[in-house]
């Protein structure tokens, strides 16, 4: 199977999850928002957030059980770079009200103008960063 078919099928599963979260819970399944909600939400909402995040973490072992192999993960960034990147991703996704799932999947599906601008911005910033890293390493 071409890796792109797997990407398309995996994407469809992600879309099904985001769509069903809207239909069942009336909520946008944005991972940065749900994770941040673990610290701020109270009562049942916190349980819903926690359950979604727990399910998310069960994904890779479930995939390993079904396919017989853990998903490939090649992490090239050093620990200091990962720390800086993590701080930027955490702060940035909250300031910008979303990440690849909330803006990228749910927002684009709704044709939200804010999400279209957000996706354009983070993809452009990501591409520029990778280009600069490449330039600095050369």
């Amino acid at each position, binding site marked *: 199977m071409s890796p792109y078919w797997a990407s398309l099928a*995996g994407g469809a599963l992600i879309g099904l999850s985001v769509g069903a979260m809207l239909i069942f819970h009336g909520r946008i399944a944005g991972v940065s928002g749900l994770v941040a909600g673990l610290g701020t939400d109270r009562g049942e909402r916190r349980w819903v957030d926690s359950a979604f995040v727990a399910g998310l973490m069960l994904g890779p072992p479930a995939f390993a059980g079904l396919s017989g192999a853990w998903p490939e993960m090649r992490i090239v960034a050093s620990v200091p770079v990962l720390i800086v990147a993590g701080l930027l*991703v955490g702060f940035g996704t909250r300031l910008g009200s979303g990440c690849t799932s909330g803006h990228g999947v749910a927002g684009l599906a709704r044709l939200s103008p804010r999400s279209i601008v957000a996706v354009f911005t983070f993809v452009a910033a990501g591409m520029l960063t990778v280009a600069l890293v490449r330039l600095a390493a050369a």
Partner: protein
Amino acid sequence: MAPLRILAALGLGLMFGLGLALSGMLDPARVRGFLDVGGAWDPSLVFVLGGAVTVSALGYQFVRRLSKPALAESFEIPTNRRIDETLIGGSALFGVGWGLSGFCPGPAVAALSTGALPVAVFVAAMLVGMAAHRVFARRMADTGIGARIP
């Protein structure tokens, strides 16, 4: 209803995580391959996003005909249409972090279960970044500068 809502969220999270694992997006090298337009460009992420947006758009069209969600009392769909410096600035900071690491929140949190230490380091830093934003947002609200419109 509460146990059903919690159970449904667990199932939908699992579906999301399985989708991420199948899509190849748990691999930061492939994500960075998509962002690396000057190198050996990897279009995988376009297929993932294409599949995800198409299916969730169908879900959204269905939702628009519902008066309320199947398991909840009301919809919580953002109505803010303001395109401002917080949206663009925040998204730009996120993009830089995404480019540096190849991780965004979904894959990073899902990959915690692989037990890879670098993933835990990234997620810990991400949580600190989120907490820092809470402090920052409160300060801004106190001074009245850049107060967020809900």
